[in-house]
């Protein structure tokens, strides 16, 4: 490996010469081309601008609405910043902002129950998706190499049909005279149709089914990279296969597992369509609560407060976790 910034001074880093102390990267102290610097800056700016425009600005708007008061008007909240009066208008509006909506969320048990139940459902379904997804991803990664594109294609294939239609299809399968019950009765496993639709079981089935590809794909990509000689090395050193799985395969698939779990857990917490269509009225989830506040009650400020709290609930543990991961990778404990 030769660092271009060092080779100009005649210093090259060689792989075979053991460095006395480990350095993650060569120091970048060589003067950079100012033109290249601007190009690099502009390049980095694009994703940040994107995030600013499509994440931060809407977030600020939602946060602002959550501090307002509901009103029968268009838009349905007060106060509205009167931009024609410039900064004075902003100041006047800001003086009337209050945390009432957030206090309201703590007073009505419904919200907390919805949050807790959402987190519970999301957590359990993420775990179940992992349990279902791991063998699938493992099987894919261990399959003959020529099959891989086909197998990946098969995992992605459901995306070609509308998500809504696929969830609707589950109604047809799970309802009391649906496909599943009819089949089970015909083979004689059950006499009475099972009640699955409009229960939380149907929600779990729906979430696991819908989010399975998001679990399988990152898992597959990390299992596929796993060097099979590591498995052989473990067995050679006296490790039976099941132990090798826990000592070698799982730790090395961990990045894929974490990515898959986040990709399932985060959208599942706020999931609305699946509990609405499959869960019936008995399933309490925050996405549904949000929808009701927004569209049925037309209480935008409370709905915004619900959304902000949800975001904070998700962001804090994720940030803490990522910081821990970064430190673990750098520090090499």
């Amino acid at each position: 490996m030769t660092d271009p910034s060092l080779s100009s001074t005649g210093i090259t880093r060689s792989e075979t010469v053991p460095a006395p102390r480990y350095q993650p990267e060569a120091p970048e102290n060589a003067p950079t081309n100012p033109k290249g610097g601007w190009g690099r800056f502009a390049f980095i700016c694009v994703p940040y601008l994107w995030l600013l425009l499509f994440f931060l600005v809407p977030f600020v708007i939602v946060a602002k609405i959550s501090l307002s008061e509901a009103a029968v008007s268009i838009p349905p909240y007060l106060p509205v910043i009167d931009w024609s009066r410039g900064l004075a208008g902003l100041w006047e509006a800001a003086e009337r902002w209050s945390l009432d909506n957030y206090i309201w969320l703590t007073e009505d048990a419904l919200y907390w129950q919805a949050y807790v139940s959402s987190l519970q459902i999301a957590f359990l379904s993420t775990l179940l998706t992992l349990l279902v997804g791991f063998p699938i991803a493992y099987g894919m990664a261990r399959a003959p190499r020529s099959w891989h594109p086909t197998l990946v294609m098969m995992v992605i294939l459901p995306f070609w049909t509308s998500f809504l239609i696929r969830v609707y299809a589950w109604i047809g399968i799970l309802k009391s005279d649906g496909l599943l019950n009819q089949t089970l009765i015909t083979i004689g496993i059950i006499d009475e149709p099972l009640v699955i639709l409009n229960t939380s079981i149907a929600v779990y089935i729906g979430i696991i089914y819908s989010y399975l590809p998001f679990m399988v794909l990152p898992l597959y990509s990390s299992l596929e990279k796993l060097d099979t000689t590591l498995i052989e090395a473990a067995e050679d050193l006296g490790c039976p296969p099941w132990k090798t799985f826990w000592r070698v395969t799982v730790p090395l698939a961990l990045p894929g597992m974490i990515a898959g779990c986040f990709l399932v857990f985060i959208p599942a917490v706020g999931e609305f369509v699946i509990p609405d269509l499959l869960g019936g009225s008995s399933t309490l989830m925050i996405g549904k609560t949000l929808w009701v506040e927004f569209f049925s009650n037309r209480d935008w400020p409370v709905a915004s407060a619900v959304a902000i709290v949800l975001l904070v609930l998700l962001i804090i543990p994720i940030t803490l976790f990522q910081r821990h991961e970064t430190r673990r990778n750098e520090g090499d404990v």
Partner: protein
Amino acid sequence: MAKKPLGPVRRAFSPWDDPSEQPFIEFRNITKRFGNFVAVDNLSLKIYKREFHALLGGSGCGKTTLMRMLAGFEAPTEGQIFLEGQDLAGVPPYKRPVNMMFQSYALFPHMNVEKNIAFGLEMDGLPAREIKSRVHEMLSLVKLEGFAKRKPHQLSGGQRQRVALARSLAKRPKVLLLDEPLAALDKKLREETQLELINLQEQLRMTFLIVTHDQEEAMTVADRISVMDKGRILQNATPGEIYEQPNSRFVAEFIGDINVLDGQVTKKENEDVQMFSSVLGDHLDVRYPTPASVGDHAALAIRPEKMRISFDKPAHPGTNAIQGEVWDIAYMGDVSIYHIKVAETETLRAIVANTTRLVERPITWEDQVWLSWDSDAGVILTR
């Protein structure tokens, strides 16, 4: 298989010559097929305790497959493998008392050096104190004491190689398998490590089996070499025997450089053989024990360093001499390789040591010279 040495050869260690000695590892009529491809073809091999044995051959010759069958990663299609007289059939890799050092090292990237070395010991359920002392011992054996807490990606290639070696030795296996262990190192480090391997093997008094495609490596480290081609062992002998008395054209040409002249046996009296080379149009004298009889086609093979070149015809009896023209000279520093055109279609090579510090050599391009060799310098190859 090994021929009787021509002269008195002193050997400190040669259990294979002792008929009462039991083999430590025995491959008995092993065949391994992958679909239609025959990787190992009815092969038998005996390896003795404390032997450093090398499986040498080009890629696809079956050497790695043979080793993997001993480790338990592949099952032979036919035949049996014995270790200390015990049939290994059906014994899974994690229960075999052999350890392997992988070509890619296969260090666990999520564990530091210490954990990597301790892995096999933990599997044996050794007490923590014993593991600690054994890991320490291994680290000092491979001179990596200060690196216990490093992760594999923080080490250089040579250090990783030593960790892999330490890990495979930590369990004190009955046999250490080395799969192209030095292939990823540069030349200088490789040569150093070869000597370290020999010392280690003598120090630990263990049986080593190495797979390599590098003939110099095999010659340096091994007590005996099995030269393999197409799933068979062509010759199993000491490095000296393999080099000086190759039993086939393949072995002769695979190990080092050699001049091969096709010919026909015209006279034979015990070991004194006369051959006629049609390409040279000349009779050549050879002293070599050969099964070939008068009239048989055979090849005469002579190593280039056993050939001499001179302006005058050598007068010694029992010396073959043919005339030729210096066609090319490859100056290597320590030696020069002279390509001598002896016939329209035949060029032979002679290696001359550069014993003087002269930039101008007396013999140069297009000179007419005599190429000569003693009658006992050559080898007769019948296959």
